[in-house]
């Protein structure tokens, strides 16, 4: 990728890259995040292309938020970025940072995922703006993401507030040509002087601050009335739209002649501008993705509007929906026939889940590539709620179902981000059982980011490496074992043994993700005449194995040579290649 940060040039940037560029131009100094699709590339871009920015992968979103807030209180411009569910993790500091305000500008980027392209829920984070009383901007394209990020820093410092910038998958992951500029060198930071009334949120100070927050909201609303962020485009007065985000673009193409009030600042609302626009058009339609956020507010103003059928509250909008949506019709369900994603060829997780399935354990799961083990035919992950819950749901279900064979699984990145406290809780409250830490030395699901247990920072600099087995021991679990998942017998025997003990055991299965270590071995030899078309090898769900019409198989050229299929075949029809090296 080219350097993005040169003076005045046309760049081709994704929404996430545009946010990075905008923040850099605005004089950003400190940026912190934990990876999460569709927000990950904001920090990746900042770390890779802007050497003057202090960027980090934090341990989780709460930590990242606090680091970035601290930098802002310290007087520099800072940025926090997360996916929608990451915002939930950062909610505690976020709510009170609305009270403390900032010194240097602070932008909080949240990327929602309508359509659940890569998430466990479809929450609409716009409500957080109302809940936290923070202003929120919503760009509709990468070029707006770029402009709004720069503006957000000005609003932040003018109104002494963190400013939220809400993106969605279709903004973050769309690329557009845009003209970039150069960096404003930030003003000197100034002295670090205590301001207890501002930064120590004890009841008395917080009460005084709450009064100021309400005042701030009124001032922000007045700004919203005048701001170019909220733009009226008068066209045909018979049909007017109030809209924001990517929906604006869909409408512009479906109804090019209509009138528009496009909201770039979606909280606080510009009530006067809304009322004025409402008066100037005959039919007023509110179009927005996910929840009726704008519509609920406008209805509360007593303005008559047409809203979408509730079926459109679910899933992302698409340009071809616009005609039906505006006509008030129900969404025509489109059957999802997309090819399902599966664990990669040779993925170490597949060995663990195949063994857990064989042992018929109930498996409380977590979030990562391994969540794919829930899909049939593997179907060996039985819960997935949020990061860290693989450990805590294990405890809860054990309390409800004592004596059952239950194991919890969690990835290495997830364990560090959200699993440690749950493990300590299990030790403290005397829970028994097995927690498997699937250590593939990366945050694979989001594209392979470093975390404390990989020993490298976001900039690939070596740092102190967190040793998981030492940490787990220090938590006080009874047994800690480290195994290589490819050694199937060892893994199976260990799982059986630990399940029968009256102990809390952690088993760390350690082998790198196939995307980090691309060490492939020759494909197994398939002796078709021995194959009984039993389908057992198909149940491991390896993408290199293709079922033939007669029930036999074909192994494609992308086989990783991991030999799991060899291990499961009951008839010896699959044999390791002569040249295959035994897995150490």
């Amino acid at each position, binding site marked *: 990728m*080219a350097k993005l940060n040169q003076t005045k040039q*046309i760049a*081709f940037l994704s929404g996430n890259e545009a946010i990075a560029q905008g923040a850099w131009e605005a004089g950003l100094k400190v940026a912190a995040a934990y990876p999460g*699709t*569709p927000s990950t590339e904001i920090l990746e871009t900042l770390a890779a292309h802007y050497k003057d920015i202090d960027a980090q992968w934090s341990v989780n979103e709460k930590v990242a938020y606090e680091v970035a807030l601290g930098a802002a209180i310290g007087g520099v411009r800072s940025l926090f970025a997360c996916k929608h569910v990451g915002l939930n993790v950062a909610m505690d500091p976020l709510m009170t940072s609305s009270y403390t305000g900032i010194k240097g500008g602070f932008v909080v980027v949240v990327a929602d995922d309508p359509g659940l*392209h*890569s998430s466990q829920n479809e929450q609409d984070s716009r409500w957080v703006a109302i809940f936290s009383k923070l202003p929120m901007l919503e760009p509709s*394209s990468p070029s707006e993401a770029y402009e709004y990020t720069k503006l957000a820093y000005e609003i932040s410092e003018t109104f002494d507030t963190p400013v939220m910038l809400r993106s969605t*998958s*279709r903004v973050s*992951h*769309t*690329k*557009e*040509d845009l003209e970039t500029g150069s960096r404003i060198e930030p003003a000197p930071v100034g002295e670090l002087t205590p301001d207890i009334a501002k930064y120590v949120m004890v009841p008395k100070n917080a009460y005084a601050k709450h009064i100021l927050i309400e005042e701030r909201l009124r001032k922000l609303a007045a700004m919203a009335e005048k701001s170019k962020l909220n733009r009226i485009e008068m066209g045909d007065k018979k049909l007017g739209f109030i809209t924001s985000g*990517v929906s*604006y*673009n*869909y409408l*512009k*193409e*479906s109804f*090019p002649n209509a009138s528009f009030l496009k909201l770039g600042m979606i909280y606080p609302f510009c009530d006067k501008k809304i009322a004025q626009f409402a008066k100037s058009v005959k039919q007023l339609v509110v179009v927005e993705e996910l929840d009726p956020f704008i519509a609920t507010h406008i209805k509360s103003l007593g303005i008559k509007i047409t809203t979408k059928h509730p079926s459109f509250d679910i899933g992302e909008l*698409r*340009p*071809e929906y616009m005609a039906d949506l505006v006509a008030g019709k129900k969404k025509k369900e489109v059957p999802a*026939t*997309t*090819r*399902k*994603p*599966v*664990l*990669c060829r040779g993925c170490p997780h597949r060995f663990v889940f195949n063994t857990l399935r064989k042992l018929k354990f109930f498996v409380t799961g977590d979030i990562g*590539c391994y969540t*794919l083990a829930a899909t049939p035919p593997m179907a060996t992950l039985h819960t997935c709620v949020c990061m860290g819950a693989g450990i805590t749901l294990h405890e809860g279900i054990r309390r409800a179902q004592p004596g059952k064979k239950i194991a919890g699984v969690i990835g290495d990145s997830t364990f560090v981000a959200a699993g440690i406290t749950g493990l300590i809780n299990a030790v403290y409250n005397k829970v028994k059982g097995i927690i498997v830490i699937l250590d593939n030395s990366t945050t694979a*699901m*989001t*594209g392979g980011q470093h975390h404390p247990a990989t020993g490298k920072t976001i900039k690939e600099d070596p740092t102190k490496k967190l040793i998981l087995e030492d940490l787990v021991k220090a938590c006080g679990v009874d047994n800690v074992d480290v195994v290589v998942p490819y050694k199937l017998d060892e893994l199976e025997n260990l799982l059986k043994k630990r399940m029968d003990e009256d102990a809390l055991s952690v088993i760390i299965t350690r082998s790198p993700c196939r*995307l980090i270590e691309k060490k492939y071995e020759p494909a197994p030899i398939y002796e078709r005449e021995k194959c009984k078309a039993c389908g057992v090898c198909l149940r491991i769900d390896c*993408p290199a194995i293709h079922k033939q019409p007669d029930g036999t198989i074909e192994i494609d*050229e*992308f086989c990783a040579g991991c030999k799991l299929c060899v291990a499961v075949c009951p008839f010896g029809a699959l044999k390791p290649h002569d040249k295959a090296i035994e897995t150490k």
Partner: protein
Amino acid sequence: MTKQLKQNKTQKQSNWNILFAGTGGQGVLTASEVAGYAAVFDGYHVKKSEVHGMAQRGGSVESHLRFGDGVFSPLITKGAVDFLVSFHKDERDRMKDFLKKGGTDLIDALEKAKSSVSDPKFVNTYLLGVLSSYLPITEQSWMKALEKAFGQKRLEENKAVFSQGRARKQQ
């Protein structure tokens, strides 16, 4: 002949909608990236949209590329695709309803691509070459875009495969 066709199309058309469809690991996203850059280098307003996340794990991958005047939506409306570039027969079947009446389905080029290239890695470059022969983008911008995407890594081979695909129509 090709030139003539291109000019006629350009006169009528202000927006170009190209849908790339395949599965993870086939180079779908790289192909649309190259085409996107080529359009940017030629001075067009461009939007390209895709979904990340499952791309590396064999799931369906689609990338929408649009350029020209009046491009707002990052997604192509169903029934408005000018060119469908598929990397897999199943994905093509899944997406074919997106083609507009009279739109061009480049599925035939896929077999040709597979049999013409020495390394499956070049299938996407070959397909890009084929696509390029239909689009009003200069060869110079295509070459610049290839350099942008591949750096010096196998650049000459990529350029050669691209040119092979680009010349296909004349064969």
